[in-house]
């Protein structure tokens, strides 16, 4: 994980999760454009999840697919409530997630990256959001399927969690799970989200630790001059 990867974006992050390589950028709060989309009581949060044509085994058309449109929606619904958008009425906060290489679980890794980018942009958030999927393969409930496993697997359960309040903002499932298997998979993925959350915090701390040191150094030189 890395934050502040991009120069022009207000906030950005790069996450490698297994062989997933994901870049997220946040622009905003900035003036709403077109103006009529602006809201009087909060910022409009917009989200675009997109996969690079070269990110998959077979080339993917760069035009947004139905899958990408659905994922943009569920990712936004997981992130938007974490953002204190009421602080920025009449503006927009745009979240862009680009999947550079896909290895199953891209929506979860995308959320992990986007939450970091939002924090990096200095946007006030209630909490970070972390994502991880659980699945089932060969009759066994396992954590975080890879690309090959996902294709043969019997079920996939992507989850995004706000770890401190222990609430889930994204939950989807496909495949076949019994009620008990589902409970097991849900517990597994929320535990993993908590571990990812710790890594997110550490990544942010690393960067802003450096920033703080530099600021202190600048202050010292200023005092001397």
């Amino acid at each position, binding site marked *: 994980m890395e934050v502040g990867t991009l120069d022009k974006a207000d906030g950005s992050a790069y996450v490698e999760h297994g062989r997933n390589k994901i870049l997220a950028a946040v622009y905003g709060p900035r003036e709403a454009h077109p103006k009529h989309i602006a809201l009087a009581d909060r910022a409009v949060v917009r989200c675009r999840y997109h996969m690079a044509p070269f990110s998959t085994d077979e080339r993917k058309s760069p035009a947004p697919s139905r899958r990408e449109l*659905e994922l*943009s929606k569920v990712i936004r619904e997981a992130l938007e409530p974490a953002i204190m958008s009421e602080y920025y009425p009449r503006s927009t906060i745009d979240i862009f997630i680009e999947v550079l290489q896909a290895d199953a679980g891209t929506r979860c890794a995308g959320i992990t990256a986007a939450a970091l980018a939002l924090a990096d942009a200095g946007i006030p958030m209630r909490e970070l959001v972390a994502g991880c999927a659980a699945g089932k393969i060969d009759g066994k409930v396992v954590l975080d399927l890879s690309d090959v496993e996902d294709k043969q697997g019997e079920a996939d359960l992507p989850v995004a969690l706000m770890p401190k309040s222990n609430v889930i903002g994204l939950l*989807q499932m496909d495949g076949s799970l019994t009620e008990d298997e589902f409970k097991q998979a849900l517990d597994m993925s929320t535990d993993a989200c908590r571990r990812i959350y710790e890594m997110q915090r550490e990544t942010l701390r690393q960067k802003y630790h450096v920033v703080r040191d530099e600021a202190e150094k600048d202050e010292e030189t200023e005092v001397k001059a």
Partner: protein
Amino acid sequence: MSATHQLSPVARLEQKTVVDLIGKGKRVDDRGQLDYRPTTIMLGVVEKANGSAQVYLGKTKVLAGVKIQPGTPFADTPDEGILTVNAEFVPLASPTFEAGPPDENSIELARVVDRGIRESKAIDLKKLCIEPGKKVFMIFVDVYVLDHDGNLIDAAAMAALGALVNAKMHAFRVENGEPVYLEEIIPLPMQNYPVSITTAKVDNVTVLDPCLEEEQVMSCRLTVTTGKDDNICAMQKGGLGFLSPDEIKQIVSTSITKAKDLRAKILSNVK
């Protein structure tokens, strides 16, 4: 880009009433929290379609049609028929629907219905192969939302299931890679009957089958689709709110029980 729409002023005025009622354990339409609205399903309403079904879920009205025609299979499943689900939010169904290409809500709806049918293996797609790698039958399920009074996902899933059960095609044999149709009329090779149950969370109370007024004020919803073996085959959370792991587990087990009743009702209606 994906963005949340603002609630209409009327909905915002109604918001408090609906939330207050639910907080008191009541609902705008006098239902109990775990009551499903009265459901009717009519089959074969459109004769030109291979199969069709119209579903009334309270005042919500959804029509689904199935068309079956030959086409080329996907490279990774050369010996399987193709299933496509599409949803159309017709502008006559709600003041908020607009004509034009499908928006994220109708795409989400179609993909959730698709997932339920696909992941429960409702149709034995292998039986719809004409010549492996060359020609298979393609099943198009088109969902038409005619009147929107909430819980479109459940209504659409029911209509799609009804239309598939209702669908008929000519029996065929294969000659030189082309299907030769016989006199006999056969149903689709159905092997599972997925049913969706949607629960909404309003002000920390969960209510089953939200109507439009409740949907407008809900913090989020969770759809759980189960097959005839009570296995969960698809789930989708929607909306801006959050659910705790315990709430989710609770919703899942209620949904499984409710789906069983509803499935029995649909199937008795259909046969």
